[in-house]
């Protein structure tokens, strides 16, 4: 059974007075297996953010099904939703979304605290995680005291500390310089090799070229997908570039 199944996903936004309708997602279908590292690419307005919001259960689809480990997340009741997201998903955002009022340590603990885990368990998990992410010696600092790359690594730690089924990343390299970007992608690779499923939305070719599979979205549809196979990162980079050129110049779909 695939870890994540998306079937006939559809999302229509209606403007306030119902005058016009915007179809952000028409009919999106794909599956992700456990342990996969998938990137979703698309231009602004292609619907990829909408897709991620629905996968993250921040938004509800107009039609279709999203199953995580066999459970349809579109049917989860509002009251249970927060807990479900906390326990099964980890999030990494473009603008980090760390709280200024917490030290990095407390930011990382946040989802566990919300799940009422004891301090010792939290500390033990962080002790395992922090060295891997290279943040062990900055845990007591506050977000405004560290660099963007360090902030993002702390955010990754926050996402991973709950041991989520899937890590959802929204433009994780968007606010980072090239060095920090390289470090973060490196980190994602490591984490994935340890068995963590990752779904990353991005329009950075550099970021997408690290994934095992890249889905291309255009006009609310999965337009094309690309498997890494035996390609190196650089070959993958070139291939993604070609595909994007083809997409913008208007080739036929073969998803």
């Amino acid at each position, binding site marked *: 059974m695939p870890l994540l199944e998306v079937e006939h996903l559809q999302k229509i936004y209606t403007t306030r007075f119902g005058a016009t309708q915007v179809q952000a997602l028409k009919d999106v279908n794909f599956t992700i297996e456990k342990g996969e590292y998938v990137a979703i690419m698309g231009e602004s307005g292609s619907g990829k953010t909408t897709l991620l919001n629905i996968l993250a259960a*921040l938004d509800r689809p107009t039609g279709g099904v999203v199953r995580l480990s066999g459970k349809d997340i579109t049917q989860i009741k*509002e*009251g249970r*939703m*927060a*807990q479900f*997201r*906390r326990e099964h998903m980890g*999030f990494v*955002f473009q603008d980090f*979304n*760390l*709280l*200024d*009022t*917490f030290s990095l340590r*407390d930011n990382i*603990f*946040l*989802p566990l*605290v*919300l799940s*009422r885990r*004891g*301090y010792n368990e*939290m500390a033990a998990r962080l002790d395992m995680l922090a060295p891997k992410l290279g943040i062990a010696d900055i845990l007591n600092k*506050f*977000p*405004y005291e560290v660099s963007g790359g360090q902030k993002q690594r702390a955010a990754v730690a*926050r996402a991973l500390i709950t041991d989520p089924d899937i890590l959802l990343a929204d433009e994780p390299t968007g606010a980072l310089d090239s060095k920090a970007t390289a470090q973060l992608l490196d980190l994602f690779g490591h984490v994935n090799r340890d068995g963590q499923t990752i779904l990353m939305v991005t329009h950075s070719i550099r970021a997408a070229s690290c994934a095992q599979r890249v889905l291309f979205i255009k006009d609310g549809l999965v337009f094309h997908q690309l498997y890494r196979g035996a390609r190196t990162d650089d070959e993958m980079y070139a291939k993604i570039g070609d595909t994007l050129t083809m997409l913008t110049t208007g080739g036929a779909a073969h998803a």
Partner: protein
Amino acid sequence: MLDFYPKLALNNLRKSKDTYWPYMLTSIVCIATYYIMQSIAMNRGLLQVSGGAVAVSIFFLGTVVIAIFCVALLFYTNSFLIKRRKKELGLYCVLGLEKRHVALVLFFETLFSALFCLILGLIFGILFSKALFLALLYVLDFSTPIAFTISIPSLITTLVLFLLLYAVLFLYNATHVQRARPVELLRSTQTGEREPRASWLLTLLGLICLGIGYFIAVTVKEPLNALLVFFGAVLLVIAGTFCLFTSGSIALLKLLRRNKTYYYQPRHFISVSGLMYRMKQNAAGLASICILSTMVLVTISTTVCLYIGRDSMISSLNPTGISGRVTLLDDRTPEQLNTEIDAALEQDGIRPDVLEQRFLWRYADFYALRDKNVFTNAPDDTKQQPVLVSLIPLEDYNAMTGQQLTLDASEALLFTNDASFSGNTAQIGSETLHILQQLDVLGPYQSNQVSTVQLSYEFVVSDFTQLQQIYCSATGQNAELEMCVYLDTQDDSALQKAIASALFEHTPPETIYSINARATVTESWNSMYGSFLFLGLFLGSLFLMATVLIIYYKQISEGFDDHDRFSILQKVGMSKKEVRATINKQILLVFFLPLAMAFVHMAFAYNVICNILVIFGMTDRLLFLVCCLVTFFIFSLLYLFVYRMTAHTYYRLVEA
């Protein structure tokens, strides 16, 4: 193009109603309040009523207080507004408006809001001043109607004061914009904030200030010291409150954070860290709220208590309709004085038998220091609270009570309002008196109904020789006899006044040197305490408005700040319900901390205020306690109401 700036200004005023309307409302209330107080203080009719002068001078004081308060309040709200709008103003600069253009927009905004507020404020002022004036006359118990007019000089004073204030506010805002750079204006609200530091020194200082203040307030015993001491204590408590709110709160939160099992719980985790930042920004505001609330509580409960208790205060100080003192230059007896009184009354055509009761007795008194049962003459510069010792000849006591008692030279009867006195001997100077009996009644006085402003001991001694001897042994001087005169009639104030004036006019010169009709005293007290009450309620409501306003703006500014924080929390996996619960907890704490603290202040101030009230002749502690509790209860209800109102706006901002 010319009407672009006024239009923009108008539009701004209309659009930013969440922040601007409360400011306008405050201005309107300030203007109305100031006008009302001015017009009452300037009312000429008031001066002509007996006791009116007292009221007028109290109200003039009131206008000054209100003026100062209004200026401070409007400055506070203005600074809040301009801080909120920095981003918007920065945007104008980025969009190509020059700074002088921005200043022009600000000018028109100020102009429009000033006109709007002045017009509405004065209209409300005129409308309500009529109603309040009637209320005042009722409170003052003035039976004669006083003409009420719209006071032109008050209108002008109000206009001038507030136009000047608006001008200053505009200049302040304009220079603020002038000095800032657009990029800074744009970013000014979102610079990352450092974690607040807890200053243990300040916390300790705060605790010490508060401790000393409370200690003084609780331990003060002597009413006459109380007033002076009270101001010291108030200053200490204010300082302590500010210290504790600013650094004590943060120190406490840091302590809580250090306790890992407490801190890492969903209920506390977000609140503790959120509160730390909240306190950093708002400590001063919260401390002001606390102080203001305490002021409201103290002002209203004392003035209400004085007003309600004034009748019993008057009757304890003036037990009979007419009371007076006579210096005796000869050895006139009470009977002789009675005849003189009869003669004086008849001269004014008043029948002597309207006097239902007459108490006259001779006495000699001096201030003494009491050490248990030993009384020694009090030196003039004594720091201790002296007691008043009176010596009364048995002859007069017998004549007054119709008894035929006899006393030995070493025997005495005692009437005192000092409940702490016990034993049956008293040593005055070198004489020791054996107290045969403690009297419950002396003339019009009853021992359980006497004012305790001044502790007094009235000894009835065997005869004049003995009186002289005791007096001389205590003071080293010869006793100069005086006579108390208490006359009572039916409760008819015109009659009382007529009798007082007859005695004043027609008794032989230098006979009765002070004579009071209770009716006259009542009038002047009514006017004094009525004015106090009126002013107290007036200032109380003004303080209350300030409190409400500060709370409201606090909520709004926090709503803006917390919006981002809570949206992150939701993204990271907090449900709406949890977010709400957390918000609720924070607001409740921040909101009710000042109220709780005000209650504590009030509780500690209770003793010292009781002692101050004694100076005004108010000794009924129970009445004051009831007044305090009722005031606190009503105040809490109002506070709760404001909380409800503002919490709603806050949720709207946070969850938007």
